[in-house]
């Protein structure tokens, strides 16, 4: 059983009672790991929220096309200042969010927790579905709904909330990164799955060696193209090496 609150887990099934207890204490005292977890999460959420606010602002402005800056042509529709700033805020939010997602990933790799893939993916698509739906139904002066936004909104919602629901139920694979039991002990840990939720095909590169793929479970197949241990120089799966 894997119990998750924020960035803590119960001992892995293969760890002995004494070793698991020591590893838990070690993880709990990993101040840097938890610091990276919290700072990275705060930065990642900041980037996602800024992206949401910027897109919402752009859609609320009603500007469909505009141009600004020095160029050889006469601009028919100059961008309003707030629209220009919102459009510049979007790449800043994306880059900043990615940087802090990296910090969060470092924290998760040290103390375990919800995968940055799940936070970033569901946060991005799930949050953007809201303004798309909202302004798709904004009939405005034309009296017509924005069909393009109404098509995109449910797709974004499914892409965002689908993995969030699945990952919330099945805390494994790409959705949840179990904390390494302990750094020195995991180097020789058995890759044999013990049937627990956290031991079936873990996708995290710093965790113990992944076991064989379990049907119905999400996560990279050991030696597959998504396996982080697979390198282009040696495409053979690690499990088949002599």
């Amino acid at each position, binding site marked *: 059983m894997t119990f998750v609150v924020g960035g803590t887990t119960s001992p892995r099934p293969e760890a002995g009672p004494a070793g698991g207890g020591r590893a838990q204490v070690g993880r709990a005292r990993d101040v840097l790991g*938890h610091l990276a*977890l919290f700072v990275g*999460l705060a930065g990642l959420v*900041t*980037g996602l929220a800024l992206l949401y606010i910027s897109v919402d602002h752009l859609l609320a402005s009603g500007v469909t096309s505009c141009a600004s800056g020095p160029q050889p042509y006469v601009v028919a529709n100059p961008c309003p200042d707030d629209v220009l700033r*919102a459009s510049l805020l979007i790449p800043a939010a994306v880059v900043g969010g990615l940087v802090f997602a990296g910090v969060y990933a470092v924290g998760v790799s040290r103390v375990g927790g919800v995968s940055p893939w799940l936070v970033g993916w569901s946060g991005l698509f799930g949050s953007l579905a809201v303004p798309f739906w909202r302004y798709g139904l904004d009939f405005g002066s034309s009296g017509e709904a924005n069909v393009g936004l109404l098509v995109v909104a449910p797709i974004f919602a499914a892409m965002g909330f689908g993995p969030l629901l699945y990952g919330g139920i099945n805390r494994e694979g790409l959705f949840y990164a179990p904390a390494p039991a302990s750094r020195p002990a995991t180097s020789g840990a058995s890759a044999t799955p013990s049937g627990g939720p956290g031991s079936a095909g873990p996708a995290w590169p710093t965790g113990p060696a992944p076991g064989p793929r379990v049907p119905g479970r999400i996560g990279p197949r050991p030696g597959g193209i998504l396996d982080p241990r697979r390198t282009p120089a040696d495409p053979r799966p690690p499990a088949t090496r002599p």
Partner: protein
Amino acid sequence: VTVAAKLLVAVLTLAAAASGVLLANAIAGAVL
């Protein structure tokens, strides 16, 4: 790990997420 430690991590995680939203609001308020 005690229940108190887990609760502390959960509270700090929520606080980090909430502070991210507040910070984004502040930045957007200053820029837009």
